[in-house]
């Protein structure tokens, strides 16, 4: 197959970026999107040109490192799935494909298609954990957890932290990401002691990073490679309201 790529090239945040056209001829339909970029890069190096910088690591859709906006969609046209799970057979021969980085205000630009998503880590650091010191845990079966709750917790915990939700959202909101962690821990009895502070702190960290708010466009759910449901955002809102009340009462 043959493709024409329009790729965002930008040396650093101090310099202006632009879309540059590259030909990608002779690509097998069984090549993954990232392998296609590898091939393009090999050819660039051969010609003595600087390869396109892009992020990837596990290349099987679980580490959340890859972060490409392909033809205007976070992770490209094949949902659910990360960009690394996208195969060229999904495109038509001769197609022009535009490749840009994930864009959201809190994602600081690094180079070409690479951005820094440390803001997501800082939201978790604000309270996305259960304070359980190693060595202090009770026997694992001493607290039964209804299967339904454990399954719901797992659905939320499946988030891979890629940030596609924020990149796809017209408001640059990270509500889907934040709601997944808040919901995961709220579904489990072990998460209850810190339920109030967790919801409040994570939401305020999210705001402080400069992420926008949710206006129910559901772009996040549409692009999420881990199929995190937007209904968790409703849960986050409930958890936040509950926590705000509880805090008022406590005061």
């Amino acid at each position, binding site marked *: 197959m043959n493709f024409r790529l329009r790729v965002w090239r930008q040396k650093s945040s101090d310099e202006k970026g632009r879309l540059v056209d590259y030909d990608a001829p002779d690509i097998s339909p069984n090549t993954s999107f990232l*392998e296609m970029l590898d091939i393009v890069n090999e050819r660039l190096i051969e010609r003595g040109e600087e390869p396109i910088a892009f992020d990837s690591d596990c290349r099987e859709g679980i580490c959340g490192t890859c972060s490409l906006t392909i033809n205007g969609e976070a992770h490209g046209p094949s949902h659910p799935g990360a960009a690394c799970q996208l195969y060229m057979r999904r495109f038509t021969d001769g197609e022009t494909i535009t490749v840009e980085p994930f864009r959201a205000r809190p994602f600081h630009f690094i180079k070409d298609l690479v951005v820094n998503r440390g803001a997501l880590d800082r939201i978790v650091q604000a309270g996305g954990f259960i304070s359980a010191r190693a060595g202090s845990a009770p026997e694992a079966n001493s607290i039964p957890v209804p299967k339904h709750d454990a399954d719901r917790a797992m659905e939320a915990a499946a988030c891979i932290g890629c940030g596609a939700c924020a990149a796809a959202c017209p408001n640059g909101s990270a509500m889907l990401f934040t709601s997944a962690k808040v919901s995961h821990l709220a579904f489990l009895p072990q998460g209850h002691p810190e339920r109030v502070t967790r919801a409040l702190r994570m939401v305020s960290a999210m705001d402080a990073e400069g992420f926008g708010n949710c206006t129910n466009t559901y772009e996040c759910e549409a692009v999420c490679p881990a199929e995190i449901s937007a209904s968790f955002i409703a849960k986050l809102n409930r958890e936040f309201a509950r926590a705000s009340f509880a805090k008022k009462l406590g005061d």
Partner: protein
Amino acid sequence: MIGTLDSKIPPGPLASKWANHKDHSRLVSPANRRKFEIIVVGSGLAGGSAAATLGEQGYNVKCFCYQDSPRRAHSIAAQGGINAAKNYQNDGDSVFRLFYDTIKGGDFRSREANVYRLAEVSNLIIDQCVEQGVPFAREYGGLLANRSFGGAQVSRTFYARGQTGQQLLLGAYQALCRQITAGTVKMFPQTEMLELVVVNGHAKGIITRSLITGEIQRHAGDAVVLASGGYGNVFYLSTNARGSNVTATYRAYKKGALFANPCYTQIHPTCIPVSGSYQSKLTLMSESLRNDGRVWVPKARGDKRPPEQIPEAERDYYLERKYPSFGNLSPRDIASRAAKEVCDDGRGAGESGRGVYLDFKDAIARLGEETIRERYGNLFDIYEKITAESAYQRPMRIYPAVHYTMGGLWVDYNLMSNLPGLHVIGEANFSDHGANRLGASALMQGLADGYFVLPYTLPNYLAGEVGKRPGTDAPAFEQVERDVRARVQKMLDVNGSRSVDSFHRELGLLLWDKCGMARNATGLREALARIPQIRDEFWRDVRILPQKNETYNQSLERAGRVADFLEFGELMCIDALTRDESCGGHFREEHQTPDGEALRNDEEFASVFAWEYQGNGAIEPPKLHREPLEFETVQLAQRSYK
């Protein structure tokens, strides 16, 4: 320079060694802990859990990872599960049985005391993870569920869908985040360790490079903990993440740490077959699939009919035929070799003939598609994305691929290398899996080391090291930083014509061919002759673009890693050649039983091979140190899964 290797295995009966050892290890008081700086390299299950736990105890920790977030370490990709001897299934499991299965699975090439300790702390790990909020699979009554894995006749594997590694890592990551907020752990993402700093014979620091800016930095610590994972990417194609590398452990080796059993590599039997030369990595299909999937190939050579047209009577369910009692759940090394054997015999599936079927037809008929979807849905989805085929309709095609490395830096019972202060945990060390790792044991070992072993053994070293942390202006730091800068510059200055990846691919193909699933002396000698040539060519002709250190430079990052693989590959082949026996994943074709199983030679080789760096190439071969393995409890026997 190095005398006899002292494994420091505590005296006393096997079952009480660890308790006695803990009772007599030195401690550091809570008030003194904050005076220590601990460097942890890697943030996966081992590094993440160790950094978090040491932070909880009050030490100051600096944790480094090359990924942009500690949550992305490659432990995240582990699918199937984690073993523990809880015996929730009431099916006869115990600490002793988990110990015995693990040591037998490793083909009697690991230390009894280490493996017993691993089995002993396995239950604590499950308790800890549940308390952290890891959403393990549960039964309808709300209690934890289990499944079976290879090499065991009990059901002791805990799991979270097919994403157990992800959930366990997120548990450790969240504990780490808590410590980052508490100020005990300082995290350095996108920062790669390029060199170890040794001061007065003790590991006291590292030199790092920021992957974003190229800045080279010095970090001093009272101890250095390497949790940098395995070296499977030496083969270029593996199930490892693209960035996984040997640099941290290999650099430590060049600074005097011994590298043990580098030839013990695990080839996982169930991966999606290679489809083209452009391929950048291989994808694993969890071993848990073998609980319900049946492995087969056509009975007739060259039978190219689609699988659904091959009648039952013309199929060879070769694992069930050869190993009736373990069947499809035979250990990984055995299942991989059996797949190679049938494909070598011309009975492989698919266009390339390098594949076997993993068939769920019977399981779907027995349990219904819904149950199969619940158990393995995400794995079937991954398979369909890559191959455009549905495993609900037709059997998966699978083939073995490099997955894990049992070899690693040599450590004693305290997980400390022969270089005092240098501790090595998780896949990066050599100690617990012998010559073959059983499924669901890697997650167990990573977390055992990080949560429950190192936090007890590290203080034993630190207690004698109060106030000995050097400043980063010490001459050793000066010198090592100079060396690092010179090496980076030398690489950039080559300005040749070939890409970094082309060298990596060439090395990988060579090693897969000569030091892969089966090895022999002739092939290994050929590899040993060829590797130095590829290495020379690399240093003469590699092209790194942009040609600059002080920038985000993925070419340069990879070049450094590939340069180390080009040296390490040689060490691996030397070890494989010297270990003139077959054991576990190390199959020397010269040594096999009449029915093609690995034939060990316990008299000569029941020992750990630990290599000391002397220089590269045939001129200065590494020096071999042997640590004899003493078996007090188990009887050495030929492994039988029949």
